[in-house]
């Protein structure tokens, strides 16, 4: 009995630990497979890269280092980090910066050239007229380049 208890004491924790690891190892494959199968393709960053490709080409030839940035994702007056709109705004901004680097995006319309990325292309009229940009280059898919009158 003592021998059996000794063996149990030595091998039971090992077996439990290995069983736990096996379960979670296989569970990880299962969850990552499901995640992969359900994933939106192309992924959001690659999709934005395609969407911004014409704008990127246009900006590269213009020689600007820093441009402004506007979007139609509204930031609430009193934003909370748990608010999904805030997260959505931050995600789009960082993705756009990632795609357009090394051109720097400044989250402000106070520039002579401003990149506008709208989820809804119809947002253009209101926002562009409010900001007072007379010249607008439309790159399609809700992507615009807003230019001051002296450009």
């Amino acid at each position, binding site marked *: 009995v003592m021998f059996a208890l000794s063996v149990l*004491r*030595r*091998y*039971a*924790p*090992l077996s*439990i*630990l*290995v069983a*736990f*690891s*096996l379960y*979670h*190892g*296989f*569970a*990880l*494959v299962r*969850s*990552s*497979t499901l*995640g*992969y199968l359900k*994933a939106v393709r192309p*992924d959001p*960053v*690659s999709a934005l890269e395609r969407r911004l490709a014409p704008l990127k080409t246009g900006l590269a030839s213009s020689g600007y*280092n*820093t441009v402004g940035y506007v979007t139609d994702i509204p*930031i609430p007056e*009193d*934003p*909370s*980090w748990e*608010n999904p709109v*805030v997260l959505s*705004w*931050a*995600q789009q*901004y*960082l*993705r756009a*910066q*990632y795609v357009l*680097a*090394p051109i*720097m*995006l*400044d*989250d402000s319309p106070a520039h002579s050239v401003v990149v506008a990325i709208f989820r809804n292309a119809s947002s253009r009229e209101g926002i562009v007229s409010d900001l007072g940009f007379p010249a607008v280059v439309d790159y399609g898919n809700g992507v615009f380049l807003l230019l001051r009158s002296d450009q």
Partner: protein
Amino acid sequence: MIWTFSFSLILSSLSGFFSISVLWPQGTCTRTTVILRSSLAVGFGCGISSYWFFGWLCLTNGSWFSMFVVSELVITLVLGLLCVLFRPGFINGAGHDPAARTAWNDLTPSARVLRAIFWAMFACAVISFILISLENPHGGFDALGGWNLRARFFARAANWREAFISSPSFAHLDYPLLLPTTIARLWKYIGHEPVLVPLVVAFLFTFSSVGLLYSSLAYLRDARVGYLGAIVLVSTSSFVLLGASQYADTVFGFFMLASIVTLAFYDAAPTRDNAGFLMLTGVAAGFSAWTKNEGILFVLMLMTVRFFGQLKGGGPKLCAHDLTTIMLGLAPILAVLAYFKLAVAPGNYYLNNGLESLPGPMAHLGKAFQSSDTIGHKVIDISRYWLIIKAASIEIWRFGGRSVGVTPFLALYLICLGVKKNGIRRVETGMAVLVLMLIGYFFIYLTTPLNLQFHLTTSLWRLLVALWPSAAFVFFVATGDWVNAKKQSPRFVDVGERRVIG
């Protein structure tokens, strides 16, 4: 592309392997430590090339890349030559341990079972890593907005310094540069920026950590313990997820593990000329600080623990010897880090009172992420202590699992098998450093300028995952074994009282 990519990776890994082998003590620089040194080489190689790439950026502003390639080749060749001259048999030699070759391959049935389970779990982790990466090839939120974005700036900008300093879009301009410069260097070699590069870098660091844990445990303890530790690490879902998200925490975790492993080797090795391990500890700790700001905390804790530990256990002479030797490896990297922090990067958000001190969207969103209390108020606010302890307890309880994580099973393992006195002596510094890191994190959370709940939710799990490989190493070295002691074949024999070396 694939040839250039492979060439640049092999070049950095070779420089890592040669530099480790040069510093590795003569007696153990043999075939038995090839896996261990190879696992270390990937990270050290990235660290060395990142260090040199940053130097090249500072000196030439990114021009004459062909000269940079030549300089890397020369560095690798010189290190290789040093290896051949000073470490003969550094790949195939049997060294001082004639039984090592046989024992390494002569596995018992239980070790064979564990080996089979390990390879199954390793395959699961690799498949999961690839699937997660395919789902999100550009990495997670922080990789996109921080590490990989910086890498793009380094690879693309005509004047990296200007772009880097004046960028209104970076959240944390003062974050160290090991990961971005590693990726940018590889992109420069290739000539364009495939997403494969950050993905492969993340893959290498993730699975090198597994290799390093396995080989160090196998060497210090036994192949069975090595396989068990590697099984537990590789089946931790958050570890694989964090790696596949291309976050720098995995890289930081790798260098912490490398520091603690080399220090344990130093504390366990019977040879008198083993100071090379201490230099490697210093280099690894330096690279951890060159990866993330948390690495600076790690360096501080490591040096403090070593100072007091050696002062008490070995006297002032041994203490001075250890710290000086660690500093030989650490100082060159800290010098570059200091230059970066003082001359290139702006201040840290933690020291500059919050995100509103930053330019760009983080200032704009500062209200959403920030706490308005003063540090004095935070320190006397009991609810903050409670919130941190509660969040940490839940995270630790669930760590590596769903509703119940690996922690209670490790506790059961510890209760049933006890601790090994020899093992504890080998990793007492590592153990103390990990505990102090947790205490350090506690105080950072307590006084954070960010919204505490936001800070805990978004970073606590990552910090724990970064500590996890080191914690697993310390745990499995220190705990008892399920096999009889007489059946074990430890590589190192305890030598009793340590003496001042050299």
